[in-house]
């Protein structure tokens, strides 16, 4: 009994909320409101948004999804007028397509104290074919002025039952109330996942649902086939789940974020299984192991790895004289990297088949990397595919094929070490995979379909080493030499930046980076173990300040960090440094004859809490020589937002230290 009362009161309280959330209910007070009560800078706000997803059934299509969404938006400022335009993409594949219908689209304005309604007519509705797969449905709400409230409803019909609506509780403007109701027949089982900083409230209920309609079928009877019509009707249980949230703050955009959508408050659904009356249960991906296995068993994935006849000859030539496993791996990796051309398309599936891709010398990510894996495997190397989600694809909450959009290669050594390879990027190296892949976890799939999670974000610090020697003339001119050594990801970034640039352009960019120094003898070379070393001489007359006969200069010259990169006071999302790194500086300074050091920055050692990183600055003065050894370490690629203040303070001290000057005065 107690339970029933509880449920009843819950329902009552919800329905009392619901009363405020009906289309067509607009008050003068709402129209008069000048700014959002909580977020005064909001240009507009979702007053409420309500979605309901249910299933329909007919004889030809079987079950299909119908989602109805009602939205009511308040426009506070002219900058918010864009919210009066709305568009949604509908997918179509041949004759199977999603369809959108708009209704109840009304704008409310307050004119001379009266509420004026303007309805959207057909001239404000548009439909545009964007490309082969997508049709964009759009509306432009009429007569929208500052202060207006608009509301619209649409019905989204979809035959793709594996894709339930992704309901976003959070938008780029505040959301006062958002509710999503799903009504799912017992034949279909979905899992629910949340992302973002808050989970919606939930109420559930079960009801009976009767599906009925007419059918038409051909019956083979006396006198041949004939058409037979009739009615069908069946009843099942339906699960009602209502998710709702009040006062969701606007999604803020910040720098150094991997993918903002990873943090948006959203609810997602995963189809687990279907079991229709008189049919066997059909299960869809449920665990990561199953997802990996399903993908692996696909002809366009695992099926490709077994093809090895077509490259036999090339491989034999390539591997002539190569006996060790290491040599073979390097040869095959470089061969695929250099010969195959990535066509800019992602996907772990092979698009054209690795055989054709090999012949054409190009393909998508699946084509190129599965070819690489196949070639390595054919030489007995323990190479396997790793399913990856790129940064733009975000972080998946539940196992599904869509969680991944990319594949790379992993080689496991006997002692369990893993080497990652990606042959689609000309600048990629073993364990230096493209930056876009440094996201979340990868899933390594072995021949038997078994799979395991692996870390993609590097643990090792990439190193950048500066050695600089310079001397200062009494007139303030500095002449010096620099050697920059780039390791690991710094090599990758160097190559990306260099691209097709000519040497002339390289020197120009170096001039810019060295505060317009004259650059001479610029050279760079790549060593066998993939370290890039740049060397150059520089000369610059503007780095020393002469004031009242003294010379002032920053010992790091143009290598210093000018500004604290973290300018915001607070932060909501983690900071993504992409990879852990270390910068080291070794500097030797010779001061001019007749001068001595009057003052210099003190040595400093700083370490951030939680082992996030450290900074050291050590200086020694020895006659007319000054020697500096300094290093900056960031130990983790991703720093959680709660450590933001630590980071901001750390960089503040670092920048201050690097901006301190050495003062030289004349010897008396």
């Amino acid at each position, binding site marked *: 009994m107690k339970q029933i009362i509880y449920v009843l009161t819950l329902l009552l309280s919800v329905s009392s909320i619901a009363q405020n959330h009906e289309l067509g209910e607009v008050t003068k007070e709402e129209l008069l409101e000048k700014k959002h009560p909580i977020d005064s*800078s909001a*240009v507009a706000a979702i007053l409420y948004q309500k979605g309901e997803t249910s299933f329909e059934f007919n004889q030809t299509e079987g079950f299909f999804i119908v989602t109805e969404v009602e939205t009511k938006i308040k426009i506070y*400022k*002219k*900058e918010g*007028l864009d919210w*009066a*335009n709305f568009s949604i993409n509908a997918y179509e594949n041949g004759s199977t397509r999603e369809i959108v219908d708009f209704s109840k689209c009304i*704008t409310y304005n307050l004119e001379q104290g009266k509420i004026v309604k*303007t309805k959207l007519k057909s*001239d*404000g509705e*548009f439909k*545009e*074919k*964007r*490309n*082969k797969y997508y049709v*964009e449905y*759009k509306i*432009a709400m*009429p*007569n*929208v*002025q*500052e202060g207006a409230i608009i509301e619209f409803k649409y019905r989204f019909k979809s035959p793709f039952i594996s894709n339930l609506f992704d309901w976003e509780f959070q938008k780029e403007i505040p959301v006062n109330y958002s509710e999503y109701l799903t009504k799912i027949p017992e034949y279909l089982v979905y899992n629910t996942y949340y992302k973002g900083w808050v989970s919606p409230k939930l109420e559930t209920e079960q009801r009976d649902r009767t599906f009925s309609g007419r059918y038409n079928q051909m019956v083979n009877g006396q006198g041949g086939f004939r058409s037979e019509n009739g009615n069908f009707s069946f009843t099942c249980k339906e699960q009602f789940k209502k998710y709702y949230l009040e006062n969701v703050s606007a999604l*803020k955009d910040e720098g150094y974020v991997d993918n903002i959508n990873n943090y948006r408050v959203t609810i997602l659904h995963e189809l687990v299984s279907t079991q229709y009356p008189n049919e066997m249960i059909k299960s869809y991906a449920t665990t990561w192991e199953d997802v990996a296995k399903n993908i692996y068993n696909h002809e366009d994935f695992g099926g490709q790895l077994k093809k090895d006849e077509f490259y036999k000859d090339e491989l034999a030539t390539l591997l002539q004289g190569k006996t060790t496993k290491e040599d073979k791996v390097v040869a095959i990796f470089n061969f695929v990297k250099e010969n195959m*051309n*990535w*066509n*800019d398309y992602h996907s772990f599936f092979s698009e054209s088949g690795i055989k054709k891709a090999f012949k*054409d*010398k*190009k393909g998508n990510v699946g084509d190129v990397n599965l070819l690489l894996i196949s070639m390595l495997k054919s030489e007995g190397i323990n190479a396997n595919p790793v399913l990856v989600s790129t940064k733009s694809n975000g972080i998946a909450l539940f196992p599904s094929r869509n969680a991944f959009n990319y594949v790379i290669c992993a080689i496991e050594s006997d002692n369990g070490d893993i080497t990652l390879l990606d042959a689609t990027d000309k600048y990629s190296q073993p364990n230096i995979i493209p930056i876009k892949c440094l996201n979340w976890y990868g899933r390594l799939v072995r021949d038997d379909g078994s799979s395991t999670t692996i870390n993609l974000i590097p643990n090792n610090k990439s190193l950048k080493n500066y050695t600089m020697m310079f001397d200062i003339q009494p007139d303030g001119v500095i002449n010096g030499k620099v050697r920059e050594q780039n390791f690991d990801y710094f090599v990758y970034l160097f190559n990306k930046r260099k*691209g*097709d640039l*000519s040497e002339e352009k390289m020197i*120009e960019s170096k001039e810019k980076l060295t505060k*317009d120094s004259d650059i001479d003898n610029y050279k760079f070379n790549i060593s066998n173990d993939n370290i890039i070393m740049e060397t150059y001489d520089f000369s610059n007359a*503007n780095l020393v*300040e002469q*004031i*009242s006969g003294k010379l*002032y200069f920053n010992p790091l010259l143009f290598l210093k960090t*000018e*500004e*604290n990169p973290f*300018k*915001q*006071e607070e932060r909501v999302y983690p900071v993504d440094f992409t990879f852990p790194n270390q910068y080291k500086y070794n500097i030797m300074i010779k001061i001019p004859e007749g001068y001595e050091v*009057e*003052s210099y920055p003190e040595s400093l050692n700083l370490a951030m809490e939680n082992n996030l990183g450290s900074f050291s600055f050590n200086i020694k003065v020895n006659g007319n020589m000054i020697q500096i050894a300094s290093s900056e370490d960031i130990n983790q690629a991703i720093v959680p937002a709660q450590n933001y203040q630590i980071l901001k303070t750390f960089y*503040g001290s670092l*920048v*201050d230290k690097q*901006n*301190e*000057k050495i*003062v030289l005065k004349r010897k008396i």
Partner: protein
Amino acid sequence: MHKILILFLIPIFSIAQIFNQKIPDSLAQKANAVILQDLKKIEILQVDKMLETTHREVMVYNKQGLDYIDANVYYDKSVSIQKLEIKILDFLGREIKTIKKKDMKDYSASGSSTFMSDNRILVLDYTPTSYPFTVVIDYVKTDRNTAFIPSWRPIRAYNIGIVKNEFILENSSGIDLNLKEINFENYPQIKFEKENNKVTYSLSNFAPLIREELAPYFWNFAPYVKFGLKHFYLEGVEGDADNWDVFGKWVNTKLLNDVEDLPEDTKLKIVELVKETNDPIEKAKIVYHYMQNKTRYISVQLGIGGWKPMLAEDVDKLGYGDCKALSNYTKSLLEVAGVPSYYTIIYAGQEKEDIEKELVSLQGTHAILTIPNGDEYLFLECTSQTDPFNYQGKFTDDRQALIIKEEGAEIIHTNSFKDEENKQLTSADITIDDKGNIKVKTTIRSFGNQFEKYHYLEGASRDKQDEYYKYKWGHINNLFFESIKLNIDKNKIEIAEDVSFSAQNYADVYPAEIILCPNVLNRETYIPKRYRNRKMPFSIERGYYDADELLIAIPQGYDIESLPDNFKETSIFGDYEISFEKLNEKAIRYKRKFLLKRGDYTPEQYDSFRKFLEKIVKADNIKILIKKK
């Protein structure tokens, strides 16, 4: 028809020859791509039939060259593509792939700024396997619209070499054709032939242009030819362009005539709103604000709607429209208020482009509204909900525009701010303590096109404003804002920013002295790149004037011993002046004035401009020293 196809098929058979000839080094050096052949033939067969035949061979040297293959074919409902074939050849000239029309990707051509249009684009989707490679493009398309005849633009970008470019325009329609050659003076190598109804332009063996910093806008120096027919067809309507008056009448009768009606109650509203004043400009101001509050900009371009404004009545009802619709709507409202105005066609964008006076034809990319006021004109940008009345923004300033009057059309020049009018006046009180920390209270007043910062600041949240100032004063670390107040006066076109902030460790503190840069708020940092042999002229498109006056109070226990010398630099590019003055024992006054003049300059002048800026950058960094007592 057959004849043409044969004519243009010949080059395809001779592709192999091209590869046997070596491309001269002078064309290939620094080239991202080389145009081996670009042959285009336009045939105007009748007023509503234009045939375009293109044969183009592009050798692509690297990734950047991919952008200049130009294998994208635009179409809409008036266009039919008869033939489209693309061949890819490897570096030896061997054919490796053929792509037909059906293999092309078909996309909507509405960009991010267009809400809806019926323009489509066929795009080549090809991944090169090695460089160089060659793309051979052949297409034939027929366009019913003859209002826009493709212009001839032989040089389309930097770093592109040209072996041969030829453009033939054959006009068998019997209709007179106008043409206008632009920027031809620097390109004597362009050949021109005319026989009967046929004109031929060609440019051969042209070495790639290399971009240099501060170069003028590309189309201010690259050659091109624009064409226009005296009698043309546009989306179901025929038009005349014998002279601007005839053309203007056509625009009036066919595009603007039946779109101006307004609902009665709107008319009454306007009459009511403007009844208090007799001044037409005041009336216009009221009407403009009424329009701004009622509408928003949405670009919908369908069929003739690409050129004809939607009904004023519809704009009134829907509350939105594109530039044409909103300009026409405002014009109708102004008419009710008794203020005459002209629908005006213009090229929009920060890069200035003129409506060519000598080429009577449909030109332009944008519509605004012009109000005559004695000898001058006021211009209204009707797509902005926030622009001040009669604000001449960079989007349409300083260029030729076409105004459509009752009795015809006329070319006029839009307004622009003088260098001195683009003004920013900064005053500040600055206190520095013995730790090197500063406290700053500043007021920055901006006018002219320096006023345009309001676009961003007006609607920005406090967080975004914070961010704006942190980047503006990126040279000051550890900034903390105490208050940010904006006062935007759209009547006077003036924005005043009152900002108070503190910053730690601004000055360098030493045992015996403190050193600081007195130019806290406005430092020039840009020094143009050095060229050993500058080839291109350069332009300063818009000038400005900044004046700063800062009062700097020094901490207790310190003395102002000496101050740097005042400094002044005058040149044809502008004037710069700074001064340091000891007000009393505790305070220094720092003044700075900088006028940068707009102008077009020769390559030889580049070096002195560079030196001018170099001196300013250096002077902006001059430090002062205060001594511990």
